[in-house]
């Protein structure tokens, strides 16, 4: 196995056993990126010198101590998480040329654990999209079929890991942006519960939903990275002081025996569910049952409203969050800023791409005078009903097993209508609204003409039960022989 193919756990163990150095490992990733990324386009920028310098420092630190969990492990960062001294463009022309003046809390945690921040990966502009086609800075292709999208919005992260152009990557998930690209690129994508991981230093999209999470080659890797990310941060008031379990320990002896798996009927009774996705999901269900899991049909009755609730709440919050891009303190400023209105309106017109503009307008509309109660207010109440649906089913089952997205990766340019694109997140959005944790795990390959396209399944667990999610995920991973 070549070094760039390693996952986090294998890399960390190899480094600890001094089978190879961090410089060798990081160089292997760099070589792989040089060789392959011209066709895949996962990375926006890669500071090779900086990464190698951090790797060298990690190798030197190794002589003094061997107890840092990620010492010398290079990881790719979605281009909306601030790493001091690196660009942070959010894949937007608005932030071209921006250099982060500080580290996000997740980056501080990663650096403290010894990780090397190596490369910044593409995404849909400001994390708005499901295909990475909304990037204002470049095209990312699916490593399994270069004519197809990698998913989104964390499409660069998924393509980098799926194509072995990274050991692991970090993404963010607001309505499915970790899980859907993970499914499209044959990797594990974990969306932690709301508040489990700090967002300080992560460019905000929809603040009542955003979470940072690991995108990895295995469930073990996801656990190792979550361990480093999770916990209270006084710079993010949504992170509770609840203790963080030992996730690797939680996975010891993982088995499907006696696990109660809920199958929400609303997720299986959907028009537009691709027959191959249905087949793979059905096979996943059967293999869990054969391994001793108990299947329970459950109902989440308000599922059909989740998309509508999300496409009110997320744009509303986005329109408020993106008000900071005004051409004053950072980001693009229009040459035609002759007065203050034009400074704002023209800088934003020139800096933002179409999807971001659409969502700002949608969000401003649903928050505007006379409409707030009917849209944002009402959506927030329906959100309560969606949350209660999950609370009820988690009294009966340990986890839910569902498809991740209705289809495998689609062709670049195939989906033109925004509303059709939004439907990609049909199965991931309800859990985001409820704030629970979920994970996409590779489950099989869909046959599409001559190509085989990866398809994942989603496990959803109750909020702050990442220990249970990882344990079940680990057991599932063993079943599918990955």
């Amino acid at each position, binding site marked *: 196995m070549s070094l760039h193919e390693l996952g986090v756990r294998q890399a960390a163990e190899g480094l600890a056993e001094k089978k190879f150095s961090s410089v060798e490992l990081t160089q292997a990733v760099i070589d792989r990126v040089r060789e392959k990324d011209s066709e895949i386009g996962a990375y926006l920028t890669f500071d090779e010198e900086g990464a190698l310098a951090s790797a060298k420092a990690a190798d030197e630190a190794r002589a003094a101590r061997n107890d840092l969990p990620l010492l010398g492990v290079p990881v790719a960062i979605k281009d909306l998480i601030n790493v001091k001294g690196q660009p942070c463009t959010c894949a937007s022309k608005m932030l071209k040329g921006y250099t982060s*003046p*500080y580290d996000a809390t997740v980056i501080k945690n990663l650096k403290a654990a010894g990780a090397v921040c190596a490369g910044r990966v593409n995404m849909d502009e400001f994390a708005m999209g499901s295909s990475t086609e909304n990037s204002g800075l470049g095209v990312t292709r699916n490593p399994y079929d270069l004519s197809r999208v990698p998913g989104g919005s964390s499409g660069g992260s998924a393509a980098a890991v799926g194509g072995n152009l990274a050991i692991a990557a970090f993404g963010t998930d607001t309505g499915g942006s970790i899980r859907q690209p993970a499914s499209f690129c044959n990797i594990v994508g974990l969306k932690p*519960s*709301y*508040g489990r991981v700090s967002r300080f230093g992560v460019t905000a999209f929809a603040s*009542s*939903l955003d979470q940072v999470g690991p995108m990895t080659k295995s469930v073990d890797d996801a656990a190792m990275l979550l361990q480093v990310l999770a916990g209270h941060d006084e710079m993010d*008031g*949504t992170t*509770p002081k609840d203790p963080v379990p030992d996730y690797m320990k939680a996975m010891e002896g993982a088995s499907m025996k006696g696990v109660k798996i809920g199958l929400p009927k609303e997720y299986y009774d959907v028009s537009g569910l691709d027959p191959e996705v249905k087949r793979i999901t059905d096979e996943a269900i059967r293999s869990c049952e054969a391994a001793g899991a108990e299947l329970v049909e459950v109902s989440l009755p308000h599922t059909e409203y989740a998309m*509508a*609730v999300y*496409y*009110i709440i997320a744009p509303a919050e986005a329109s408020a969050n993106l*008000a900071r891009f*005004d051409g*004053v*303190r950072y*980001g*693009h*400023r229009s040459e035609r*800023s002759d*007065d*203050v*209105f*034009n*400074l*704002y*309106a023209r800088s*934003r*017109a020139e800096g*933002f791409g179409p999807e971001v*503009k*659409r969502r*700002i*307008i*949608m*969000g*401003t*509309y*649903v928050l*505007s005078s*006379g*409409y707030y109660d*009917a*849209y944002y207010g*009402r*959506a*927030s*109440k*329906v*959100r*309560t*009903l969606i949350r209660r649906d999950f609370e009820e089913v988690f009294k009966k089952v340990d986890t839910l097993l569902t498809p991740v997205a209705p289809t495998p990766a689609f062709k670049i340019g195939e989906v033109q209508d*925004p*509303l059709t694109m939004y439907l990609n997140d049909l199965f991931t959005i309800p859990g*985001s*609204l409820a*704030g629970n944790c979920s994970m996409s795990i590779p489950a099989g390959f869909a046959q599409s003409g001559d190509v085989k396209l990866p398809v994942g399944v989603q496990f959803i667990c109750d*909020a702050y039960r990442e220990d249970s999610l990882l344990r079940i995920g680990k057991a599932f991973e063993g079943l599918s022989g990955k």
Partner: protein
Amino acid sequence: MANQTIDVGYVAELARLELTDEEKSVFQGQLEDIVKYVEKISSVNVDGIEPTMHGRAIVNAFREDTVRPSLDREAALANAPRRTENEFYLPKIVEGAES
């Protein structure tokens, strides 16, 4: 729920977003479809239901009120599109004032 359609030109102005005529016409149609789609929530009975404003509600997340270093001025100004030595440079905002 409102039966009027969204007026994209007006809302874009509220959002401080200049649109071309072409953008206005494309967004008008797309956003009418999206607004129509989200109106399905009007049929849900939400009488007596409390709103959910966060994935997990935390009340009064305080931290110690202590003085701590923040970004120094040079770091804060480093990404400014236009600046003076110690300030962000802006077009005139108040009528009659010096630029």
